[in-house]
């Protein structure tokens, strides 16, 4: 068989291939030749063949059949063979390969070889890709070499030890003795790798960290020498001596000084020296300054030093070099929490970076800008951020929009400003806004009572312009459904009221229903909005027609809604006004971000539960749930749990009625006014009953079985007032026997209007696990014609179906 071609020749040949197919053919031919050469166990050319294989491997072709050949090369006595063999091992024989461990013996022998370059090869291979088993087996050899006086081997052994520790942390202890005088070395290679080794050990073990703290003075001395020493040609980089070593020492000092006053004090001077004396014209100087700043910020440095560090970052921000600006923004983001005021001073520079062309810089600047927003600068910052939102790439829009909403919620100087800001985001980046923002925005709008007319007007106008942005359309339809009456009555105070008729509004909403641009969710919103307008507008017939058309819609969601609304028109028309009443002010959720589900841990009492009054806007509440589940067409009954304001008498665990949906507190009783549920429970066949009727106050109970737990009865009370005066501050309380568990949700309002003009509704959920006869004691308090009224009553006439 002729001698296999040389590596260079192969490379040259392959590079002449003009197509992928041609290259593949050449490679296959050569691979075949190599394979047969391997089969012949030819020692002379093995090295050449493996080298060629490695080249083909780099081009992306499989080379696993060369694995064993690499092992044979490693075992050879020739240095050339070993060199290529170890290279092949590092490329082909990582720890995932079965034959990886077969290397162990060869490496062990070579670690003890007489030639340092062979030892070096073994250390390198072990230190780059040795598996945990291999590291365990060979750690002893590495430890021995760590103590040698040969600096070439010592530095390699140090990094090999680092790898061993990373793979098998328990072995860290065994390297401790060898670290004793590592730092007294003069050789920079050994010094550098020793610092890396010490860093690794300190990062992994608090004991080691405490042990090595005593090295701080020595490290400071070495660093000082590097700075003060004269020119050293072999270590010089643009006038700085061994920046790699300087940076590693600074990093180790950071770890040692963190949380420790003495160490931090010992390094204060040198840090100040480095910070002030390092040449900043080239990247290398800035690399050292960067590391210095990170160290100063992490240790217990004195305030003067910290200010110096932030100022360095501020200077970085003004640097022409993009890399430096990028790094400055990243560091400022890390320090903005702890040194907020200092970072604020650089706010304008940061905001300027929003206009940078570099995407990475823009992103960092955006994150930092949001972190810097506070009550004082909100107006100015928001102007900049909204401008950024207008012009930034789509990849930023979602995050920016969410950030704007969060910031606006926290620091809005006025409701009008808040609404305007939201409008701006919805109209400019409407399609990128996150889905969970829609319910949050709706809640916000609901709570800004005095802005309702203004909001609905602005949203209506926005809809006329553009119906393609779904979040905007959804919020707008919801608002029109709620506040349509304000829209047509032209009540807006904040701006010029527009003249719009009922038909025009219904046109717009119907337009949403048929438009191709509307998503199914949007269609649901608009149908519900149209339905709500049936109690606010007079063109009920038109609405009835629309609703009945969609009763045969292909979209199941729409169909269900339409059918149930239809039923509402036909059979339950008397319930319609109550059901479609204006939403009450909802409790503000604690965060505007993704809904958070918080476990209540047994604070609430099941037996006597006080309902909470609808709170004024702005009162911080518990974590809430997604409000608009009900109107968003969610069929899962979302039942929040209540929290009593004062702890009641009995203790006990709040029952989690929905199994794994353990919700936090929310007093949005209107979850339960899920229109579908309402229609549903009317069809369960449990007759309603009058629970109380005295002094003009009548309280009716209607029933429903809750899914999925059939032991839970859901009772809705309807309180009506036949006298000529309103009953205000109306509070309904209920108690049940100990074998039951009761949960009382928020009432719809606490004013029962006179002359039966409206009802107050409230939902009670009763868990009746033992299927006992339901009894209840109720307590009513209200103010009527100026005097407080209180009454207790027993309710015993529950229909059997409600508790059986």
């Amino acid at each position, binding site marked *: 068989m002729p001698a296999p071609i040389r590596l*260079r020749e192969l*490379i040259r040949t392959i590079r002449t291939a003009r197509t992928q197919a041609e290259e593949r053919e050449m490679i296959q031919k050569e691979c075949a030749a190599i394979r047969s050469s391997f089969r012949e166990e030819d020692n002379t050319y093995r090295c050449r063949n493996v*080298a060629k294989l490695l*080249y083909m491997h*780099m*081009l*992306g072709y499989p080379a696993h059949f060369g694995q064993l050949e690499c092992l044979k090369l490693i075992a050879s006595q020739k*240095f*050339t063979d070993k*060199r*290529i063999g170890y*290279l092949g091992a590092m*490329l082909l024989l*990582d*720890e*995932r390969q079965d034959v990886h461990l077969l290397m162990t013996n060869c490496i062990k022998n070579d670690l003890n070889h007489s*030639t340092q*370059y062979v030892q*070096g090869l073994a250390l*390198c291979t072990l*230190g*780059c*890709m040795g598996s945990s088993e291999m590291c365990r087996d060979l750690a002893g050899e590495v430890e021995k070499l760590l103590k040698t006086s040969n600096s070439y081997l010592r*530095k*390699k052994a140090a*990094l*090999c030890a*680092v*790898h061993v520790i990373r793979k098998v942390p328990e072995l860290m202890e065994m390297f401790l003795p060898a670290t004793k005088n590592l730092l007294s070395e003069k050789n*920079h*290679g050994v010094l*550098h*790798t020793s610092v*890396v080794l010490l860093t690794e050990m300190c990062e992994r073990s608090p004991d080691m960290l405490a042990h090595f703290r005593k090295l701080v003075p020595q490290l400071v001395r070495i660093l000082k020498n590097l700075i003060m020493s004269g020119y050293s*040609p*072999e*270590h010089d*980089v643009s006038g700085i001596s061994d*920046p*790699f*070593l300087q*940076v590693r020492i600074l*990093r180790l000092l950071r770890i040692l000084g963190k949380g420790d006053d003495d160490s931090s004090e010992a390094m204060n001077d040198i840090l100040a020296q480095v910070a002030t004396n390092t040449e900043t014209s080239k*990247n*290398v100087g*800035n*690399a050292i300054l*960067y*590391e210095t700043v990170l160290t100063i910020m992490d240790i217990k440095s004195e305030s003067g030093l910290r200010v110096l560090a932030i100022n360095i970052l501020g200077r970085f921000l003004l640097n022409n070099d*993009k*890399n*430096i*600006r*990028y*790094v400055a923004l990243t560091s400022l983001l890390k320090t903005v929490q702890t040194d907020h005021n200092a970072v604020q001073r650089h706010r304008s520079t940061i905001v300027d970076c929003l206009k940078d*062309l*570099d*995407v*990475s*810089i823009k992103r960092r600047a955006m994150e930092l800008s949001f972190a810097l927003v506070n009550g004082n600068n909100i107006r100015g910052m928001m102007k900049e951020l909204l401008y950024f939102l207008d012009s930034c790439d789509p990849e930023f829009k979602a995050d920016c929009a969410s950030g704007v909403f969060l910031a606006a919620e926290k620091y809005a100087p006025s409701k009008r400003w808040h609404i305007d800001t939201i409008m701006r985001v919805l109209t400019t980046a409407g399609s990128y806004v996150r889905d969970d923002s829609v319910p949050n925005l709706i809640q916000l709008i609901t709570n800004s009572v005095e802005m309702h007319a203004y909001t609905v007007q602005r949203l209506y106008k926005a809809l006329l312009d553009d119906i393609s942005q779904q979040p905007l359309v959804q919020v707008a339809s919801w608002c029109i459904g709620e506040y349509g009456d304000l829209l047509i009555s032209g009540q807006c105070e904040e701006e010029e009221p527009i003249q719009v008729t009922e038909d025009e509004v219904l046109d717009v909403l119907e337009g949403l229903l048929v438009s191709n641009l509307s998503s199914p969710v949007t269609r649901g919103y608009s149908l519900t909005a149209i339905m709500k307008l049936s109690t606010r507008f007079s063109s009920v017939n038109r609405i009835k027609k629309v609703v009945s058309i969609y009763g045969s819609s292909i979209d199941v969601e729409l169909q269900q809604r339409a059918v149930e609304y239809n039923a509402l028109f036909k059979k339950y028309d008397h319930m319609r006004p109550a059901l479609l009443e204006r939403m009450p002010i909802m409790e503000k959720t604690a965060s505007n971000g993704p809904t958070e589900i918080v476990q209540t841990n047994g604070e609430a009492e099941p037996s006597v539960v006080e309902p909470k009054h609808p709170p004024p806007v702005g009162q911080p509440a518990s974590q809430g749930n997604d409000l608009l589940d009900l109107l968003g067409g969610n069929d899962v009954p979302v039942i929040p749990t209540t929290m009593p304001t004062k702890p009641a008498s009995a203790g006990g665990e709040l029952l989690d009625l929905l199994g794994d949906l353990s919700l936090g507190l929310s007093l949005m009783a209107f979850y339960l006014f899920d229109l579908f549920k309402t229609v549903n429970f009317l069809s369960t066949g449990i007759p309603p009953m009058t629970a109380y009727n005295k002094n003009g106050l009548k309280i009716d109970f209607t029933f429903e079985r809750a899914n999925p737990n059939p032991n839970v009865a859901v009772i809705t009370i309807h309180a009506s007032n036949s006298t000529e005066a309103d009953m205000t501050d109306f509070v309904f309380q209920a108690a049940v026997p100990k074998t039951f568990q009761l949960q009382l949700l928020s009432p719809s309002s606490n004013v029962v209007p006179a002359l039966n003009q409206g009802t107050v509704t409230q939902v009670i959920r009763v868990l009746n696990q033992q299927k006992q006869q339901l009894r209840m004691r109720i307590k009513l308090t209200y103010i009527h014609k100026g005097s407080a009224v209180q009454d207790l009553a027993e309710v015993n006439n529950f229909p059997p179906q409600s508790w059986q």
Partner: protein
Amino acid sequence: MIHFLLLFSRQGKLRLQKWFTPLSELEKKKVIRDMTLMVLARPPRTSNFLQWRDLKIVYKRYASLYFCTGLEEKDNELLALEMIHRYVELLDKYFGNVCELDIIFNFEKAYFILDEFLMGGEILETSKFAVGGSVEEADTLQEVQEP
């Protein structure tokens, strides 16, 4: 530590790959593909830093070759640029005015030099002369042993 060092041409052809974490062949190919796509797509006059998964990517172009490395969160990006530059200087010193062809035809030498400069994702030797010196001595050893 650095997780990998890749060299590739402006057409996306790989010239050198050094991995310091164990990855499967498939994962390696994915990283290479992602790196080449991301880096080659960068417009001029942007920073040399990118974020990819949980790594900081530092890349620099020298003539027709891109040097691309992946760092951990706590590593210093500006220093990584210096590290890449040092490697290029070492190649330049060894090959004498190094160009892409040198690295193509002598890829094993490029690896040998790299292995005297970095190990286990950390810098092994900070002296400009020591690295080249070791490689040349090892070369001599190789020649001496050849019959």
